[in-house]
């Protein structure tokens, strides 16, 4: 177990900079998920921790030691690759034990440890098979066994679940989290799947365009997105975002709809982006902050129903329980509770805090 310190790390390929000065501290034993769209630099960051990519500028320290110039094998990291990267000509046992063989352990010792690891992953009966004879999930487990057996200080996962089918993905997700609960090894997990991020992580790191947008627990990221990007990226269906402006103290307006908000210190005339989560609006016109939506299409998702439509000409989605009675298409009025309104600066995209959330951030 070890903590990881990433200090102003940059990566450039020639003139093309892909990671722009990332600072991140990962505590010992923590499960951190790096989340972002493809090309945001998240895999590059992981590979720099692993030692597979050179660090252009900045420092990475594992357990207090700067590892910039160490070979991958000296860093105490183990990695699970997206396509598993199992050695095709070796059996499962040889694949799992290869790291120990390279390290020069005796055969009996290796066999014993391979058996222990294989047993904990349910691979005992497959030890003599070649990777080609295994299913996707089993290959994934072999890849994890290969990482586990060296008892590394840090586990690195590079989108390990994206080659699995949906059902297996859910199952392996749970297994990975259970494994972490049992071993308690510091883990960094890279993915573009927000569900994986929300379910696995102690803390989520949202990256975009080579920058870190936000670091926080899954709940913080969901409840208080730090930027317009995070707000739009996290959540399915995504947050409704549209442009508006401040019209008075505690009041914003967009497309002719006036919303009162708990944010303090808003200068009238300031352009803002207004964000409303689809599940936080309340159907029916009670109270203030009421608007109406023309629903032209509704989606049944089993437990919930999505209503797609326009609010004053702008696209808008509302999520309601599937049990909601009444027509599915037509004009509905709904209420936006003041605490459900997120505001972002129209230029920088940064979150504009409410008095309450500001106080929490300061504490």
């Amino acid at each position, binding site marked *: 177990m070890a903590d990881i310190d990433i200090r102003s790390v940059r990566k450039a390929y020639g003139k093309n900079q892909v990671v722009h000065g990332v600072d991140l501290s990962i505590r010992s034993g923590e499960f951190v998920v790096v989340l972002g769209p493809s090309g945001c630099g998240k895999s590059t960051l992981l590979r720099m921790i692993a030692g597979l990519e050179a660090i252009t500028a900045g420092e990475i320290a594992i357990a207090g030691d700067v590892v910039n110039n160490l070979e*991958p094998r000296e860093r105490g990291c183990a990695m699970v690759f997206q396509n598993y990267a199992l050695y095709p000509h070796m059996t499962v046992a040889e694949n799992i034990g290869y790291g120990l063989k390279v390290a020069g352990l005796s055969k009996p010792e290796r066999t014993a440890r391979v058996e222990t690891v294989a047993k904990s992953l349910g691979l005992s009966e497959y030890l003599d098979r070649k990777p080609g004879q295994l299913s996707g999930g089993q290959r994934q487990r072999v890849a994890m066994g290969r990482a586990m057996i060296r008892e590394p200080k840090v586990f690195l996962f590079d989108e390990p679940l994206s080659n699995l089918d949906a059902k297996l993905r859910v199952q392996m997700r749970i297994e990975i989290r259970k494994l972490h609960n049992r071993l308690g090894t510091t883990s960094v997990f890279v993915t573009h799947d927000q569900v994986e991020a929300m379910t696995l992580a102690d803390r989520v790191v949202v990256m975009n365009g080579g920058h870190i947008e936000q670091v926080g627990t899954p709940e913080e990221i969901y409840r208080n997105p730090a930027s317009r990007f995070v707000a739009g990226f996290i959540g399915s269906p995504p947050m409704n975002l549209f442009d508006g402006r401040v019209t008075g103290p505690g009041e914003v307006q967009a497309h002719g709809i006036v919303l009162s908000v708990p944010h303090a210190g808003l200068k009238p005339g300031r352009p803002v982006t207004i964000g409303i989560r689809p599940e936080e609006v309340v159907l029916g016109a009670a109270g203030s902050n009421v608007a109406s939506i023309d629903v032209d299409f509704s989606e049944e998702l089993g437990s919930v129903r999505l209503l797609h439509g326009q609010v004053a000409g702008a696209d808008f989605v509302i999520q309601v329980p599937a049990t909601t009675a009444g027509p599915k298409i037509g004009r509905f009025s709904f209420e936006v509770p003041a605490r459900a309104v997120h505001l972002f600066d129209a230029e920088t995209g940064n979150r504009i805090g409410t008095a309450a959330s500001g106080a929490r951030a300061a504490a």
Partner: protein
Amino acid sequence: MIERTPVLNLVTHAVLFIGLAIAFVPMWLVFVAATLSLQEINTPPISLLPGSHLWENLAEAWTRADLGVKLTNSLIMSVAVAAGKIALASITAFALVFFRFPGRMTAFWLIFITLMLPLEVRIVPTYAVAANVFSPYQTILDVTGLSWLWQQLTGAELALEWNLLNSYTGLVLPLVATATGTFLYRQFFLTVPEELMEAAKMDGAGPMRFFREILMPLSITNMAALFTIMFIYAWNQYLWPLLITTDRTHRGTAVMALRQLIPMSGDSTGGGVPDWNVAMAGCLIVVAPALLVVALMQRFFVRGLIASDK
């Protein structure tokens, strides 16, 4: 794919069998000739059915051309060429594919160019180098005046010499130094996923260990294909062994020995008896090892050349 084209099937099969016949008839004639007596073979028309003298012809060819020694020489040379080729090709391709170093592309193109210069084209300079491996260096020293300087300083003439004539080394090395295998290996290495190398790195394996324990086992079919090609190539060499071996009794190869069995009017023996039956029997013996290698390696050979099963 399922197709129903009976006419096309018939035509393609006919083409196949005609091709087979064209390829096979000469071999058949060699075999028939090897089974006839001297008298039978010199009686027109050419017999198309085998006779009964195969074993005595084989025995005669074996002793007259001293094939025991020659076949051993050929075998040593061919195995050495094939093995040397695999070693050289795999390690060069490894450097070209998995490492980034200055001059990588230059090295690549220099190797590529050797494809356009087969042994026959560069045979005179190759012979000069084989006669004295140090001659290029000697020339450099002479031209730059360094050997003159050496003579002034020490009083002794500087004459570097390492002669490869009449040796197995001389037979083998020039045949090994070509690019064919390097390209076969390069193509294979390019299909190996990069993650495999990274996984090996994470497992702590250095480059040579990765090469030995992961790349080499994966390339077994390639190795078999290359071995077959190079074995046959070296086995069939005629011109180069003829040039480099002066002691033909001890260093001559089997293909060279065949020449001694062929009756020629301009020969030192003054023409002699036209005993083609013995010559053809010699052919049968000499072609047998090559056939055997192809037969044994054929399965791997085809797999190695068409696809990589990973």
